[in-house]
């Protein structure tokens, strides 16, 4: 009765040492969106990779429209009408947006080997418009922010006329607005009769979008069925295999008066204007804003990755030199970047070395600079355990082979090992599962109670509201408003972010920032 377009039958996949998928079977129906949820490393991406022709299953078969389906390559999968949006962005940074979108096709001018630049750009522009992405098709991808890149990646998949679309955590870099927009498109596609698999750790999104759901745990299908049968708490419990009552831990407010970080009128042409922010000991300060509102840029300035033209940044009352991440680290700053692949991790390096990288000087002897490997691996091991890092070996496994969420844990781990006094977290929970998120929140709360100040950038209002003592709202490179915990109100925050006035505020700049 149900119109099955695709089915997995007894799929098993092993990586050396890891049993990533164990006898997985389920089906995908026409005109349905299927949600796939599971903890980090549950095997979701692996499953998609198998369908998308990137990996071959060790055992088991797949059927497409009732016929056996064995894709030899991604191209082959594509030819079968299966399009795949990878969890890790697969864009060529040295090519333009339009070229990236048409990389495997390139419409040619009739009877010539040359492609039609105009047509390509036109099509591209249309696609971008449908995603409400206002960038030029000619811009190089290297100039785009992660969020924009993600939308380009999505546009690339939408540009084909595929029957089946696989979205592997497509919204990790998107804000609510773009996400909503993407969902509208996905619903439209579904209504056009396409089938979609949607993977996400944001369960509320999953609930609002999908028709059916499959829960994966440790490479096995635990459960599946229509979404109505799966309220969030059930989903969570199935995913993690135990009872979890809360998504957010309880916050212990521990703010002390001592200001750790203070920015004075920081400005940079075209990026940020007149930013005054302070973070106190034990305080978690959230920064909310739409994509490209300048939070990341500001965080980079604070940490010394980028420089700024005017103003100053003080740490513990002393000015912090510009453009010297090393100095910032010495002064107790830590920075979890939003771009883990390019800036956060050494993908080709073992996990242990990644975790150790920041703290190496602390583990090396004074003059010879010999590294105390024993102590190092012991402490790294502890960090790994405390983060529930899922890996076979810290020492020998490369970060590249970790699941997305576990990679994120490595980034967090390497800064925790350094015991920072101010932690800047740019989208730290991106791509990690509920369980792990919970751990991260617990860690944040613990750090704060130990006196660490935290600057917490996130595009999820809920988690900001749950975790922060204060939320600073950004828009277009400016701080618009500051909410104290007692004033938190999702609607208000969103309105400010969109530069709409609150009923009690004046129009543009709602309230002057800072309470000093």
């Amino acid at each position, binding site marked *: 009765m149900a119109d099955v377009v695709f089915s997995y039958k007894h799929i098993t996949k092993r990586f050396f040492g890891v049993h990533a998928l164990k006898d997985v079977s389920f089906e995908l129906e026409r005109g349905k969106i299927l949600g796939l949820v599971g903890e980090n490393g549950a095997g979701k991406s692996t499953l998609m990779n198998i369908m998308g022709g990137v990996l071959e299953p060790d055992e088991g078969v797949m059927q497409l429209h009732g016929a056996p389906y064995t894709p030899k390559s*991604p191209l*082959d999968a594509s030819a079968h009408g299966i399009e795949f949006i990878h969890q890790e962005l697969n864009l060529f940074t040295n090519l333009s947006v339009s*070229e990236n979108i048409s990389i495997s096709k390139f419409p040619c001018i009739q009877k010539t080997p040359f492609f039609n630049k105009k047509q390509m750009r036109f099509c591209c522009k249309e696609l971008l418009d449908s995603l409400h992405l206002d960038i030029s098709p000619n811009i190089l991808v290297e100039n785009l922010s992660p969020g924009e890149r993600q939308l380009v990646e999505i546009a690339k998949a939408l540009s084909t006329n595929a029957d089946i679309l696989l979205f592997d955590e497509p919204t990790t870099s998107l804000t609510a607005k773009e996400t909503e927009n993407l969902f509208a498109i996905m619903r439209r596609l579904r209504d056009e009769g396409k089938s979609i698999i949607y993977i996400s750790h944001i369960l509320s999104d999953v609930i609002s979008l999908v028709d059916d759901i499959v829960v994966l745990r440790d490479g096995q299908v635990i459960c599946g069925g229509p979404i109505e049968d799966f309220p969030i708490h059930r989903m969570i419990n199935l995913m993690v295999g135990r009872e979890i009552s809360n998504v957010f831990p309880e916050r212990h407010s521990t703010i002390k008066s001592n200001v750790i970080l203070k920015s004075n009128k920081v400005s940079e042409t075209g990026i940020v204007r007149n930013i005054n922010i302070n973070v106190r000991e034990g305080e978690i300060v959230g920064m909310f804003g739409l994509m490209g509102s300048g939070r990341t840029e500001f965080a980079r300035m604070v940490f010394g990755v980028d420089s700024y033209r005017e103003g100053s940044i003080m740490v513990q009352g002393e000015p912090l030199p510009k453009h010297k991440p090393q100095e910032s680290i010495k002064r107790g700053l830590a920075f979890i970047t939003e771009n883990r692949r390019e800036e956060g991790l050494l993908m080709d390096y073992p996990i242990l070395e990644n975790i150790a990288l920041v703290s190496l000087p602390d583990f090396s002897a004074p003059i010879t600079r010999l590294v105390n490997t024993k102590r190092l691996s012991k402490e790294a091991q502890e960090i790994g355990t405390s983060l529930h890092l899922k890996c076979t070996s810290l020492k020998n496994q490369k970060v590249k082979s970790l699941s997305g969420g576990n990679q994120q844990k490595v980034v967090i781990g390497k800064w925790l090992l350094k015991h920072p006094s101010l932690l800047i977290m740019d989208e730290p929970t991106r791509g990690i599962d509920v369980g792990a998120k919970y751990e991260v929140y617990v860690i944040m709360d613990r750090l704060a109670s130990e006196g660490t100040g935290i600057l917490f950038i996130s595009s999820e209002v809920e988690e900001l509201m749950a975790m922060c003592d204060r939320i600073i709202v950004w828009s277009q490179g400016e701080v618009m408003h500051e909410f104290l915990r007692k004033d938190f109100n999702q609607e208000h925050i969103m309105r400010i972010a969109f530069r709409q006035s609150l009923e009690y505020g004046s129009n543009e700049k709602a309230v002057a920032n800072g309470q000093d």
Partner: protein
Amino acid sequence: MDRTKVIKFTLKNSTAVLFVLIFIMFGLIAPRFFTLKNFQNIMSNASYIGIIAVGMTFVLLTGGIDLSVGSTMYLSAVVCGKLINEFQVPVVLAVLLSLCVGLIIGMVNAFAITKLRLVPFITTLITQTVARGFGLFITRSVAVNYPDSVTLMSTSKVLGFIPLQIFIFLVVVLIAALVLNRTRYGRQLYAVGNDLEFAKKAGIKCDRLIASTYVISGLLAALGGFVTITQIGRVNAGFGSGEEFDAIAAAVLGGASLFGGIGTVFPGTVLGTVMIEMIQAGLVFANIDIYIQPIIMALIIFMAVFIDSVRTTQIHKLERRNILKA
């Protein structure tokens, strides 16, 4: 706004600007440097290495390297001469066959790299050694002379005014630039060089693309060899050795990266090649002490690369998008 536009323009074309400046500088030292004839000489002397550097650019774009071009030049030139001198093969046919030598060496490289999975550096080092060894073997190290019918080609003019070697060079550059910028093949080459794994996932036939670059490089090396023999008329045992470094240097000076994905044939590699040739000519024009010449050459190249890198960071800064509301 307008000022930044001017700055941007200058920055973007700084290599060309520098090029003109060097040209003017030598012209001021030695006025005859400004003659059209001199420019023609520079171009014609740049042509063979330029042709090879174009091929090298293709290889570099994929993140490979081709150390065999110098030997390819030698072996194909030797084959060409032997065919004409000892087997009385018609010149045109001999030239075509010698291009095939380049093609074959390129195919061997391509096969070893994409099918046997050998590292490009080692593979082309092997073909370099073997090809030259083979050339020495068939010539017994004796120089090969070319009949006048070959050397006269260098004096022939296409359309009445473009010397043949410059014409060949321009054609190669034109085709290569079009291929790189305007065809799917070309753009995919950039993609492969940017990230091989992504490219595979995007369904690009990476091996085929990579293989093709070595074939192109081999073919163009043979063509470059032919262009040279029309000019110098004789091939010694040392012919072409070390040219691989000149070709790589020209491409890298033109902005190509050894790690792939970055570089252009035009203006990049062409400017790089012509610039080196121009500086060399300028030094001779200025009659500078021959012991000092290479020192000045090195310093000028350093300046060029230095300016280029400063420019790149500046452009990056200027192109940062404005997120502030005006």
